C-alpha cells in the first residue's frame, strides 16, 4: 500500500499521460456515439465534452484521488519558491545568509556545549555510572582501603577507582615527552565496558598489591601518534617517569578516559603508584607519603566510580555507603589530634553524583561563559529571523495583487498559507543546511579561540544527532514561526483593496503606516543588536581590565620553560648539578639578561601549601595558618621583575650552612605580622620558628588573574638543593619570539632526560587563567557585530522598501516643488525614528538583563554609562548610514517616472 503510494508519487509523468489517454478515449467514444446518432463531427464533440463536464476538472479530481496530491503540491510549491528565489536573488541571498549566520552560530556554540556538557561517555550504558563524592570541601578522593570497604558494602553496585589524569614523562626510544596518564584499578575497564582493540586491557589480576605489575594500556590516539598503529607496539617497553612498563594493549577506538577535556594516553594499575613516583592530588592525614599509597588509609587520592543497574534504588545505595563511611571515619578519628579537624571530619557525608557524562573541570570552568554565549547567539538568531520575517512580509506585500487574484478565482486561503509557508520553510532549510556547514568549522574555530597555541582544549566534537537535531529544530521553528505570521497576514482576503488600485500601489502618507509589523520587527532588531553590542563592549572591557591587572611580575620580557624534574627519574643528589647546567646553558643564549629557576612559579595552576606556626601569632580557632611555598634560584626577583618592598634579596651566603631564611609576600606580612616590620622575625614548621624573614616582596598573582593573592614564602634553593624544579625563566631585552625556540633547544642539550612541557612568555601563561573571559570577550565581539550587521541589513531593506512603495508619492512631492534635500530628510527622519525607538528599547533591555551578566564582569558595572552611551551612538550612526542610501535614491526619483510608477 505504502509502496504503491510512493510508486504513484514518483511515476507522476506516466500517470498524467495515462490519465490523459483514458479521458480522451472516453470523450472520443462519447463523440462516436453521438455521431452514430447522425450528429455531425464538430457538434458531436462539443456535446460529448459538455456532457463529460470538461476535461480539466475531471483531471483535477482524479489527481486528488491519487492520494499523493499534497506531496505533489508541496514539490510544486518548492519548485515555484526556488523559481521566485532565482528572480529575487538579492532578497534570497540576504535571507539565507542571515539565517546561515544565525543558525550556524547557534549550532557551533551548541556543538561545543554538547561536547562539553551533554555528550554522554562512549561506554556501555553510561546512565548506570556514578561517582561517590564526599561532602567535605573540595575532597572527593578516597583511600584505597576505604574504597575496598565501601565496595563490599553496596553489593548490587560494582566499583572501580582511578586517579585524576596526571602528567607523566613518557620515554619511548630515548625520546622523552610529557603526556597524560591515569592510574586505575584492574576492574576499571570492565566496569566501563571498554575492550581492547589490540592486545588486552587491564584486569583485576594486574593490580596485585604484593607484586605490582608494570603493565600499561595505551589509548588509540597515542597508539596512532606514537606507534603508527603497529601491532609491534604490544609488548614493547615504555618508560613512565623513568620506570620501564610493558604495553599490553590498546583501548577501544575513541576512548580517552572519563575526564572530559583531559584525555589520557596511558592507563596503569594503581599498585604502580610507588614505582612511577605518582605524587599528584592527594590529601594526607597521619600517613607516610613516601611509602606505597595503596595500603594506607590515611592517603586519599582516588576517585570512586560506581555502576549500578538503573533499577537499584540510589537512596538505599547511598544510605548503605554512608553508613559504612561513618565507620571508616570513626576508625580514623583516633589519629586526629586537632579538635576542629575532628568535628569537621565527623560532618563528612557521602554523595552520589551522575557520571554518565564523565568528570570535567573544564565544564565547570566554561559553563557560565558558554551560557552567556548561547544567549548571545540566540539573540543573533532572533535578529536574523526578524529579517526573514521582514523580507517575507515586504516581498509578500508586493505580491498582494497576485495573492488577491488567486483568492478571487477560488484559491482556498489554507492553500495560499501552505504555499507561503513552503516558501519560508524552503528558505529556512537552505539557511539551516548552510548553517550546519558553517557550524562544522565554526565549532573548531570556537575551540581554537578558547585554546591558545600552547593549550588546545581537547574536547572531541562529534557532529552528532543532537547538533543536527538542534539545527533542524532551529530551522523548523524559524521557518514556521517567522513564516506563519507573514503568511497569515498576506493571505487575508483584501481582494477589493488590492484589485481596486488597478495594480498600482498608491501609497499616501497615512497608508504607508500599513507596515506596523515590519516596523516593530526592525525596532526589535535594533534593540537586540544594541543589547548585543553593549554586552560585547562590557565583556571586552572585562577582559581588558583583567589583563591589565597588576600581577606583580614582568609579563612581557620574561620567557618561561616548563618541565618536571621529579618525573625524569633523576637522583636527588644530581639535581643541583643539573640545575647549574640548565642555567648556564640558558644564560649563554644571546640577548638573555638573567636566568633563574623555581619549583612552583606564578600562574602555573600548581601550588604547594603547608601549615606553619608563626612567631608571636596565635591563630583564631578555625584558621589553619597555611602558606604557599616557593623555592627559587638565584636572581629570581630580578629576573621576574618582582619588587622587594622591604629587606634584602637572597645572596650566595644563604647556603646550606647558613641560618634558614625566607622572603615573604605582602599578604603574609600583613596577615601574620600586622603593622610591625616582619624583617628579622621567625616562622616555621611544626612548633618551631627557625626560618627568618629577610625581605618582603610585592604581592604576585600566583593563582592567576582573578584569584586573590595567598600568603606566600620564598625560600632559596641554595638551602634546599634537592627540591624538584619545574620552571626556568629567562629575561631578555630583545624580542621574545626567536628566543623561545632557542631556549627549548638549549635545554634539550643541557638536560636531555627532562621533557619540556612548553616554552612561552609569562604573559601568555598568565592569560590562561582568564581563557573563559577571553573566549567570551572575543566571541561576543563577533556576535555583537554579526547582530548589528544583520540588523542593519533589515533596516536598509525596510527603508528601501518603504521608499520603493512611496515612489509615487515622492515623485508627486518632487513634481510639486519639494527639494531633493527635503525628501532625503523625510526618509532619514523615518529611519531615525525607528532607530531611536530601537535604541530606547535596547537600553531598557540592558537595564533589565544586565544583572544576569554581572558575575561575568570584572571592574565595571553592567550598566556602565560610557559603554551604553557609546554603543547607542554607534547604533544610531550605523542606522543612519543604512538609511542614507535609500534616502539618496529617493531624492533622485524622477517625477515623470515616479508618477507612472507601477510596483
Amino acid at each position, binding site marked *: 500500500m505504502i509502496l504503491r503510494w510512493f510508486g504513484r508519487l514518483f511515476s507522476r509523468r506516466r500517470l498524467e499521460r495515462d490519465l490523459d*489517454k*483514458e479521458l480522451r*478515449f472516453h470523450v472520443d*467514444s462519447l463523440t462516436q456515439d453521438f455521431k452514430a446518432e447522425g450528429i455531425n463531427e464538430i457538434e458531436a464533440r462539443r456535446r460529448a465534452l459538455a456532457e*463529460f463536464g470538461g476535461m480539466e476538472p*475531471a483531471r483535477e479530481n482524479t489527481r486528488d*484521488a491519487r492520494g499523493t496530491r499534497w506531496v505533489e503540491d508541496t514539490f510544486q510549491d518548492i519548485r515555484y519558491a526556488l523559481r521566485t528565489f532565482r528572480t529575487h536573488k538579492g532578497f534570497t541571498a540576504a535571507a539565507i545568509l542571515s539565517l546561515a549566520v544565525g543558525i550556524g552560530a547557534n549550532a557551533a556554540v551548541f556543538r561545543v556545549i554538547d561536547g562539553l556538557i551533554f555528550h554522554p561517555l562512549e561506554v556501555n550504558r553510561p546512565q548506570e555510572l556514578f561517582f561517590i563524592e564526599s561532602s567535605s570541601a573540595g575532597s572527593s578522593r578516597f583511600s584505597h582501603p576505604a574504597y575496598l570497604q565501601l565496595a563490599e558494602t553496596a553489593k548490587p553496585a560494582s566499583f572501580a577507582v582511578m586517579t585524576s589524569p596526571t602528567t607523566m614523562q613518557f620515554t619511548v626510544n630515548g625520546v622523552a615527552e610529557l603526556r597524560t596518564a591515569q592510574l586505575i584499578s584492574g576492574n576499571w575497564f570492565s566496569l566501563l565496558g571498554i575492550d581492547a582493540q589490540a592486545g588486552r586491557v587491564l584486569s583485576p589480576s594486574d593490580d596485585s598489591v604484593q607484586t605490582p605489575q608494570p603493565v600499561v594500556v595505551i589509548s588509540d590516539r597515542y597508539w596512532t601518534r606514537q606507534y603508527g598503529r603497529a601491532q609491534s607496539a604490544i609488548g614493547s617497553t615504555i618508560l613512565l617517569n623513568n620506570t620501564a612498563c610493558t604495553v599490553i594493549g590498546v583501548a577501544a577506538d575513541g576512548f580517552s578516559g572519563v575526564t572530559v577535556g583531559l584525555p589520557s594516553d596511558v592507563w596503569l594499575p594503581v599498585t604502580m603508584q610507588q614505582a612511577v613516583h605518582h605524587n599528584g592530588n592527594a590529601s594526607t592525614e597521619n600517613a607516610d607519603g613516601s611509602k606505597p599509597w595503596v595500603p594506607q588509609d590515611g592517603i586519599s587520592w582516588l576517585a570512586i566510580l560506581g555502576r549500578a543497574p538503573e533499577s537499584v534504588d540510589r537512596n538505599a545505595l547511598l544510605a548503605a555507603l554512608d553508613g559504612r563511611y561513618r565507620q571508616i571515619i570513626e576508625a580514623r578519628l583516633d589519629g586526629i589530634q586537632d579538635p576542629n579537624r575532628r568535628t569537621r571530619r565527623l560532618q563528612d557525608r557521602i554523595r552520589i553524583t551522575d557520571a554518565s557524562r564523565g568528570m570535567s573541570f573544564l565544564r565547570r570552568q566554561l559553563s557560565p561563559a558558554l551560557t552567556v554565549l548561547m544567549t548571545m547567539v540566540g539573540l543573533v538568531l532572533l535578529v536574523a529571523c526578524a529579517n526573514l520575517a521582514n523580507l517575507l512580509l515586504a516581498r509578500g506585500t508586493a505580491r498582494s495583487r497576485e495573492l488577491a487574484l488567486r483568492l478571487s478565482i477560488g484559491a*482556498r486561503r489554507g492553500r495560499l498559507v501552505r504555499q507561503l509557508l513552503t516558501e519560508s520553510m524552503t528558505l529556512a532549510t537552505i539557511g539551516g543546511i548552510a548553517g550546519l556547514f558553517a557550524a562544522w568549522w565554526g565549532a573548531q574555530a570556537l575551540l581554537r579561540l578558547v585554546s591558545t597555541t600552547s593549550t588546545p582544549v581537547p574536547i572531541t566534537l562529534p557532529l552528532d544527532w543532537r547538533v543536527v537535531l538542534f539545527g533542524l529544530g532551529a530551522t523548523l521553528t524559524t521557518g514556521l514561526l517567522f513564516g506563519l505570521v507573514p503568511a497569515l497576514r498576506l493571505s487575508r482576503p483584501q481582494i477589493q483593496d488590492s484589485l481596486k488600485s488597478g495594480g498600482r500601489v498608491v501609497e499616501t502618507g497615512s497608508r504607508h503606516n500599513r507596515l506596523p509589523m515590519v516596523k516593530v520587527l526592525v525596532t526589535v532588531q535594533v534593540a537586540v543588536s544594541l543589547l548585543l553590542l553593549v554586552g560585547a563592549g562590557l565583556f571586552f572591557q572585562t577582559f581588558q581590565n583583567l589583563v591589565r591587572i597588576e600581577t606583580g611580575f614582568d609579563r612581557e620580557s620574561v620567557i618561561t620553560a616548563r618541565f618536571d624534574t621529579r618525573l625524569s627519574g633523576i637522583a636527588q643528589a644530581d639535581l643541583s648539578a643539573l640545575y647549574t647546567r640548565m642555567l648556564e646553558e640558558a644564560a649563554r643564549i644571546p640577548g638573555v639578561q638573567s636566568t633563574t629557576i623555581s619549583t612552583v612559579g606564578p600562574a602555573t595552576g600548581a601550588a604547594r601549601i603547608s601549615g606553619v606556626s608563626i612567631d608571636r601569632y596565635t591563630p583564631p580557632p578555625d584558621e589553619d595558618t597555611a602558606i604557599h611555598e616557593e623555592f627559587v634560584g638565584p636572581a629570581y626577583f630580578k629576573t621576574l621583575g618582582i619588587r622587594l618592598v622591604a629587606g634584602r634579596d637572597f645572596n650566595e651566603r644563604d647556603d646550606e650552612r647558613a641560618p634558614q631564611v625566607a622572603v615573604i609576600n605582602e599578604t603574609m606580612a600583613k596577615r601574620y605580622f600586622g603593622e610591625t616590620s616582619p624583617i628579622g622575625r621567625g616562622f616555621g614548621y611544626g612548633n618551631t620558628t627557625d626560618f627568618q624573614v629577610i625581605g618582603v616582596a610585592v604581592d604576585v598573582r600566583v593563582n592567576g588573574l582573578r584569584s586573590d593573592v595567598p600568603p606566600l614564602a620564598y625560600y632559596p634553593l641554595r638551602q634546599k638543593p634537592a627540591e624538584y624544579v619545574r620552571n626556568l625563566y629567562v629575561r631578555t631585552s630583545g624580542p621574545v619570539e626567536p628566543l623561545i625556540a632557542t631556549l627549548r633547544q638549549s635545554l634539550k642539550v643541557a638536560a636531555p632526560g627532562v621533557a619540556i612541557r612548553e616554552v612561552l612568555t609569562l604573559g601568555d601563561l598568565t592569560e590562561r587563567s582568564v581563557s573563559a573571559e577571553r573566549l567570551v570577550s572575543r566571541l561576543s565581539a563577533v556576535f555583537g557585530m554579526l547582530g548589528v550587521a544583520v540588523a542593519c541589513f533589515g533596516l536598509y531593506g525596510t527603508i528601501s522598501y518603504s521608499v520603493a512603495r512611496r515612489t509615487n508619492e515622492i515623485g508627486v512631492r518632487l513634481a510639486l516643488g519639494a527639494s531633493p534635500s527635503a525628501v532625503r530628510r523625510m526618509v532619514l527622519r523615518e529611519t531615525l525614528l525607528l532607530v531611536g525607538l530601537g535604541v530606547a528599547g535596547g537600553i531598557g533591555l540592558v537595564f533589565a538583563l544586565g544583572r544576569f551578566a554581572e558575575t561575568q564582569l570584572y571592574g565595571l558595572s553592567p550598566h556602565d554609562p560610557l559603554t551604553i552611551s557609546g554603543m547607542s551612538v554607534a547604533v544610531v550612526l550605523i542606522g543612519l548610514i543604512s538609511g542614507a542610501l535609500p534616502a539618496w535614491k529617493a531624492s533622485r526619483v524622477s517625477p515623470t517616472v515616479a508618477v507612472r510608477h507601477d510596483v
Partner: protein
Amino acid sequence: MTIPTSKSDLLQGTLDLLILKTLVNEPLHGYAIAQRIAQSSRALLQVPQGSLYPALHRLENRGWLAAEWDRTETGREAKFYRLTRKGRKELENEIADWRRLSEGIQLILEEAK
C-alpha cells in the same frame, strides 16, 4: 488550484457500489462502465461523468480494482478495470450495507403512509 467539490457521501458510496457491481462479470473500460450502468438501470441512473474517473482511480488506489491497458473491439487502446479479490469482498459488504440502508428507508417510508 482546485475548485472545491462537494459530493454527498451517499452519492459517492453509491457510485463505488455501482462500479464494483458492474465489474463483477468482466473487465470493462471507463466508458463501458458508464454505459453499462445507464443500460442496466434502464437509464434511471446517469453516472455523473466527471466523478467516474476520480472514483475509478480511488478504487484502484485502494486495491479494489486493478487496471490494465488493452485493445477494444474497435482496436483502440483503453484502460480496462477488473475486480480484485479484495474488491469482490468489498462488493459483498457494500451490497449488504446498501440492503440494510434501503430496508431501513423502506420501513420509514412505509410507516409514514
